[in-house]
């Protein structure tokens, strides 16, 4: 599987966020915001991130994830991890 672009990863995160928060319909998805700011609670975020990592076939330790402030930073980290994984393969 080729490494998805950052935009494609944003779309994956968005899809899982929408799937996990059906009341997201009236919230505008903004990658510069944190998921918490968009109405997600801590366990919503755990689900969204683990589903996204599963789709991308990458795994980022939780300690690293906890340092992130918004969706863009998450996407950057997932994208970089996917590239590293591809380079190592």
């Amino acid at each position: 599987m080729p490494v998805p672009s950052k935009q494609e990863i944003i779309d994956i995160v968005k899809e899982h966020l929408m799937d996990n928060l059906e009341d997201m319909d009236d919230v505008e998805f903004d990658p510069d915001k944190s998921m918490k700011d968009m109405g997600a609670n801590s366990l919503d975020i755990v689900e969204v991130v683990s589903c996204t990592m599963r789709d991308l076939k990458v795994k980022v330790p939780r300690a690293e994830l906890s340092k992130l402030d918004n969706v863009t930073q998450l996407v950057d980290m997932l994208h970089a991890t996917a590239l590293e994984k591809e380079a190592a393969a």
Partner: protein
Amino acid sequence: MTDTVTMTSEDEGVVVMTMQDVPNRNAFTEPFVDRLLERFREASEDRENRVIILRGLEDIWCAGAHQDLLLELAEGDMDAGDILLSKALLDVPIPVIAAMEGHAIGGGLALALCCDVLIMARESRYGCSFMNMGFTPGMGITRLLQDAVGEYIAKEMMFGGQLFRGTHFESRSGVNYVLRKSKVFWKAQQLARRMAEKPRFALETLKGDLSIRQRQAFELTRTRESHMHRLCFGRPETAARIRENYTKPT
């Protein structure tokens, strides 16, 4: 030091038991389990009590076993003391309403399933995280969950380990109510007041009968669950999985 499990009574015959171990986010540590056992006993013995509402913190009802406790299980041959909780709660002689405003995960969900009435919050999450950490479910949940949500949804939850929003259970389970978080406790009070009008001897008699199914389910599973735990906790990778995949609601 603040009490990790408080008991108050505003309505006659209704006792509100609140799990509030804030530093440990209502995860089972040995002192917290001991305190809960003590409170179940106290609430049962007071003949004035006719209904219990079991409440948690606003965002977390109960997180199940504490990570440290799971690591001890994985690294040694310590017995899972939380198994006693299921039994003790099932043995409470009066109805117990689980008012789950916050999340209930793993053993926390098992605790809820030992109650008589379940009220979930639409916004909170409920699930069986055991297998995420590489070991099989415990506290009687392998059978109790099937009775609550149906065989196939229970299997999905136990194999997959996902945490579902309360809304997921609205139309596909035997959970009594799935409400906005702000209405969960209110509804529990309404139900409790209604039940508390009934005489204790009749409530006790009916509880003894209606809980047979849960108690049988629990007795059927405890030996098998312990056997599966011995297999899983004996594996070297389990401790690493517990460290990496433990879900700690923040």
